[in-house]
């Protein structure tokens, strides 16, 4: 499948600081690609370079076959992309229909306004002034403006921030219906469940680099790594067969961390059936995407953390690497590249 987005060795500097440091990735047509990372990780700079909004200092970028830095092709590119910004940016005094109709006129083959109104659930608000909409409704209008031009590639920058749970599910359905029609989506979000629900692949950025890339289910080896088995012992049927290192709390809760969970469970359930134990609260969990994310973004070597301390992105926000490094100071420093999915993850560290 052709790459809708191809990025190779992308570099962006602000003064002496490398906000984006030799980042490479590809996004296939029709794919949903999520970019995760703390504030200041370089996500916004990367996305804005892809959108043609910001210039780059190195590397090659092709978006729908077009170099976004090519001013001569910028209009052709913008006719084929849609952008949903983090900021709520719509003229307050125009009606919803007026705003959509105006923006539809910018594109060669726009979606009909009524279709967009239905898609984002604003048909009953078509003639309402934008300023009278609730925050969630305005975000839906934002989404409508992103898709009005029938984009081949849609950039979603934290699209459901401020949505209630039901509105989030609605927005996810819209995104799924778009990708079902072949639209490629690049998503940035701070919600791990959103990335898990929507993304085919995820890249985690930290300190201007991609520190991991893979499917949401396999990122950081979370599909094959250590599992945590928990249950509560309540009867007096004796002690179950537990591997060394199992933790039995005073309240009866037992926690077993193991990479041989099938074997442990087989022994445990055989024992429970024999002894008549119900094993209440039995769960088997792997690390969540959030666990993996925190490990990845918090496991930068000290040199990176020092660099990040003085680092600022275009908007001037302090980079979060230092904070993240403090939050998880002892986890695998210097080993951010251990995925178990065939080495999809990459680091740009020299």
């Amino acid at each position, binding site marked *: 499948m052709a790459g809708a987005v191809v990025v190779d060795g992308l570099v962006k500097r602000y003064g002496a600081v490398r906000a984006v440091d030799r980042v490479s990735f590809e996004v296939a047509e029709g794919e949903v690609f999520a970019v995760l990372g703390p504030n200041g990780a370089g996500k916004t700079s990367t996305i804005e370079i892809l*959108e*043609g*909004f910001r210039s780059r200092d190195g590397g090659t970028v092709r978006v729908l076959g077009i170099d976004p830095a090519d001013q001569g092709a910028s*209009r052709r590119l*913008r*006719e084929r*992309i849609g*952008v949903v*910004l983090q*900021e*709520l*940016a*719509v*003229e*307050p*005094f*125009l009606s919803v229909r*007026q705003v959509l109709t*105006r*923006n539809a*006129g*910018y*594109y060669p083959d726009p979606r009909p306004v009524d279709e967009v109104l239905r898609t984002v659930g604003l048909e009953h608000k078509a003639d309402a*002034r934008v300023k009278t909409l609730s925050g969630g409704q305005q975000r839906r209008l934002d989404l409508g*403006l992103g898709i009005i*031009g029938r984009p081949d590639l849609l950039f979603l920058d934290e699209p459901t921030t401020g949505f209630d749970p039901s509105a989030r599910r609605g927005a996810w359905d819209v995104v799924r219906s778009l990708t079902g029609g072949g639209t490629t989506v690049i998503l940035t979000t701070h919600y791990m469940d959103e990335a898990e629900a929507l993304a085919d692949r995820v890249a985690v950025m930290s300190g201007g680099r991609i520190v991991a890339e893979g499917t949401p289910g396999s990122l950081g080896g979370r599909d094959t790594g250590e599992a945590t088995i928990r249950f509560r012992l309540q009867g007096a049927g004796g002690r179950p067969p537990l591997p060394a290192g199992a933790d039995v709390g005073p309240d009866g809760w037992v926690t077993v961390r193991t990479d041989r969970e099938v074997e442990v469970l087989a022994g445990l359930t055989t024992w429970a059936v024999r002894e008549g134990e119900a094993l209440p609260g039995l769960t088997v969990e792997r690390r969540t995407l959030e666990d993996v994310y925190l490990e990845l973004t918090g496991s930068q070597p000290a040199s990176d953390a020092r660099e990040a301390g003085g680092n600022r992105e*275009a*908007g*001037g*926000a302090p980079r979060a690497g230092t904070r993240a490094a403090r939050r998880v100071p002892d986890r695998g420093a210097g080993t951010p590249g251990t995925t178990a999915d065939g080495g999809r993850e990459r680091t740009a560290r020299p």
Partner: protein
Amino acid sequence: MSVAAGLAGHRRGSLRMVGRQVYYEQLGFWLNPIGAVFTVGFSVVFLALMGAAAGDARVPFLPGIREIQYYTAGFLAYGVMSACFNNLAISLVVRRETGLLKRLRLSPLPAWAALAAVVVNALVVSAVQILLLLVIARVGYHVAFPRQVAPLVVTLLVGGVCFSALGIAVSTLVPNQEAAGPVVSIGFFALLFLAGLWYPLRRGSAMARFSAYLPVRPMITAVFRPFDLGTGGSGWAWHDIGVMAAWGAAATVVAVRRWRWAPRRG
């Protein structure tokens, strides 16, 4: 299709694009009651009040010229400046800081078309103000219309374009939307005071000589000329128009160098 026909079609397409954008700019302007009242209503109400206060009084150092005649010319200039400078500068800061400019930049609408529509919108608002002011002056206070229409139209147009450039340039110097209103309006009203909008300024006075090289005074005196308010001779105030154009050119340089589509905050 010949190259000439292709170019003509392209030009028509570009004009249509700007025209369409101006339509939505106009909608946005007039549907905002506070913006419309402050930009247009202010000059209209002030002219009416000053006309009522002046009665049939004459300007002491302009023999035979009624004060309302003086104020009418001044407020025509003011109308253009308030729409093209004051309102434009504030609105551009707000648009930049709320992300509206960024969104526009990410759409296929060319940057030149977006900015042209903003300037044309300001000129249209100015034209509406000018018509309202002339009607009020004529009907309410029997003010004579300008004797030379072409110099008046050209002066107002050049002034509109130059003050638009100044408005865009100043918007790039204001760091956030909270500062936009106070910074732009206080500077503007200080210049108006120096330029003698609120009271007849005697020609040759120190203040008149000083403010002749600031942008506002030349606009006001250049608008007086076609009314023949004791200035005599041609309706063309070439020196004043030249000073305005110089300010416009300098502002264009600043605007081009400092312009940004993204918010400064953050």
